[in-house]
């Protein structure tokens, strides 16, 4: 954990909402903004942003993602830090953008990508590594279990940062998820192209979630949560799904 190099309020922080959250789960970027502002950040949402290109790239259309990478760099390179409530999209920026640029064959863009990428953070990384906090002053009096999504875990290696943050939440009853590190079966278009296998994987994840007796399933990616939540919903399990940002943004007033 490193202390911030300069006062938090001086950092020019941009929110990368991600197209999926922006469109489908606006509560998550809203929670991210309120959390970061509560911690003293000045957050901007550059309206020109769109998408990291992951869906295209992972489905085999990497060559169509060049314009999105260029846009991403144009929009975000003026900031000190870019924060996204999605391990998967940040993983795509770090792991795929350099490759896409290579595919497109633009050297100047390549060096801009190289410069920008280290400043792009997943939410828990930004909180713990840049702001140097684990207690974000949240209050959430519920039984919670946490699913570490594959891309956070194995691409970004966020490790136990999200758990450090959750453990510091007041009132929380955090219970361990069996087989936590196993993929939930979402995998982008995999959920459609190999729906049967995807559902079989998700069913095991749901079984584990139900074993914990948790009321709320938390993760750092709404895509995985949509898949697991879709299965939980079909089973009428009563378990709610929530993004990490929403739990961390919760305060005593919200719970009243």
């Amino acid at each position, binding site marked *: 954990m490193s202390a911030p190099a300069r006062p938090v309020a001086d950092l020019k922080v941009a929110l990368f909402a991600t197209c999926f959250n922006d469109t489908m789960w606006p509560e998550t970027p809203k929670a991210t903004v309120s959390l970061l502002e509560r911690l003293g950040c000045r957050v901007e949402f550059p309206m020109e942003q769109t998408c990291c*290109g992951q869906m295209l790239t992972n489905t085999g259309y990497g060559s169509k993602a060049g314009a999105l990478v260029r846009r991403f760099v144009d929009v975000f390179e003026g900031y000190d830090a870019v924060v996204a409530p999605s391990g998967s999209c940040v993983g795509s920026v770090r792991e795929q953008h350099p490759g896409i640029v290579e595919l497109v064959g633009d050297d100047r863009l390549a060096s801009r990508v190289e410069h920008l990428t280290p400043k792009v953070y997943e939410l828990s990384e930004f909180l713990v590594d840049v702001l140097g906090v684990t207690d974000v002053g949240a209050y959430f009096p519920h039984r919670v279990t946490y699913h570490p999504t594959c891309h956070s875990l194995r691409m970004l290696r966020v490790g136990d940062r999200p758990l450090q943050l959750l453990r510091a939440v007041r009132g929380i009853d955090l219970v361990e998820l069996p087989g936590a590190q196993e993929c939930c079966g979402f995998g982008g278009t995999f959920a459609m192209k190999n*729906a049967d296998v995807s559902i079989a994987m998700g*069913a095991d994840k749901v079984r584990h979630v139900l074993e914990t007796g948790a009321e709320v399933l938390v993760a750092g990616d709404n895509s995985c949560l949509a898949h697991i939540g879709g299965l939980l*919903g079909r089973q009428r399990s009563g378990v709610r799904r929530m993004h990490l940002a929403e739990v961390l943004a919760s305060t005593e007033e919200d719970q009243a």
Partner: protein
Amino acid sequence: MSTTTPGPLQQTSATFVGMPTFPQAARAALANTQQRKNLRHATHTIRGKRERVVAEVPEWEALRVAGAEAKDEALTHLGDYLEQLEASLTSNGATVHWARDAQEANRIVLDIVRSKEVDEVVKVKSMVTQEIELNEALEAAGIHAWETDLAELIVQLGHDRPSHILVPAIHRNRSEIREIFLREMGTVGRPAPDDLTDDPARLAEAARLHLREKFLRAKVGVSGANFAVADTGTLVVVESEGNGRMCLTLPETLISVVGIEKVIPSWEDLAPMLQLLPRSSTGERMNPYTTMWTGVHEGDGPQEVHVVLLDNGRSHVLADRVGRQALRCIRCSACLNVCPVYERTGGHAYGSVYPGPIGAVLNPQLRGTASTIDKSLPYASSLCGACFDACPVRINIPELLVELRGQVVEQEGRTAESAAMRAAAWVLSDPKRLAGAQKAAATAGRVVGTRTVRSVPGLGAWTNARDLPTLPTESFRQWWARERGEDDR
């Protein structure tokens, strides 16, 4: 020698022609609940063992890098090392043959076996001879090829196909194995005892007695090799049961079929390999048997040694800058054991002797993506990354899968999917278009209201077991513009 072959596979294995796509084969496999149970149990057991013994080695990451570097060095200068290997093998008294494809390799082996005037050979478990379907080729010529690895024997006697690289009978349980032994052993040699139980020790004993008479009789042995050391001309086989050593030392003639990617530059390079392989594959610190043979030694071991160096699509893979890392594979099967997709479908769904994550990349690489099964394999992954973490030679399998998806897409040309992706790219490349699409979605959301969505035409694959998230009435972007308008540029 030349390491250039024209394009991917001239020869496609007959067994798998007409194989359904992965999603279709997977659906059938998922319905086999006994197999799913067997697979889950077996993969989780090996997975746990591997994790424990890997954690014992503090320099594991450095070993992985050393292993990857040794293989990369060999692959980067493959022509040179193969020439060196040929020279050292020859000077040690072995005969080297070159085979461009499966057909050529099978013909070479068949000619040698025929020249010995025998009608049977004993075999050490080897992936490469399965890849070229050597047993079938020998069988067609009236020569029996006896598999001597226990699991391989189970598969052979069961008229089955292997479903795992290392544990080919992983999909079978003990009572199934007992039945196979009782039914089949007598038809090809010493029968299983009538009072055979499904006790593992009794099953192994039955196999041992059945195989022993074959070992003692056989004049010709056939093997692959885990490694081929260029500077010393040494071939290496790593195994657990001792059957391999019997095959490698008892027969007068030994034929080893070796993929050209098996070469490593020097004797020193074996050091990381022999640490990486057993820990990754069986979760053992050291495998029970490591047999190394260097040419011919008078009065000791086989008096005639043939080595068939096989290309079969490998030089095509080598030519692919991103794809060539797959040739580092040492067939440890660690990636299979950690793969959540393999765990549920088993190996048969991959339509090849190379199943699991490495199969999903290697098959389309070696065979090309002309067939429906090979086109579907790069998508047989959720890209969870567990395979990359487990791989002892650091093959970035998710990266390769994505790369291959690109090739499939390019080959397919215009499809409904490519039209949808082009449309998505068009919408996402402009924030105004994205906002427009969001507004349309919000309208749809209002129409649907807060009812839980159970099915949507075209989204059957999603909704047959999962609810769809309800659409919000306002995107984040709209909210921000409304609340924090000053930032709206």
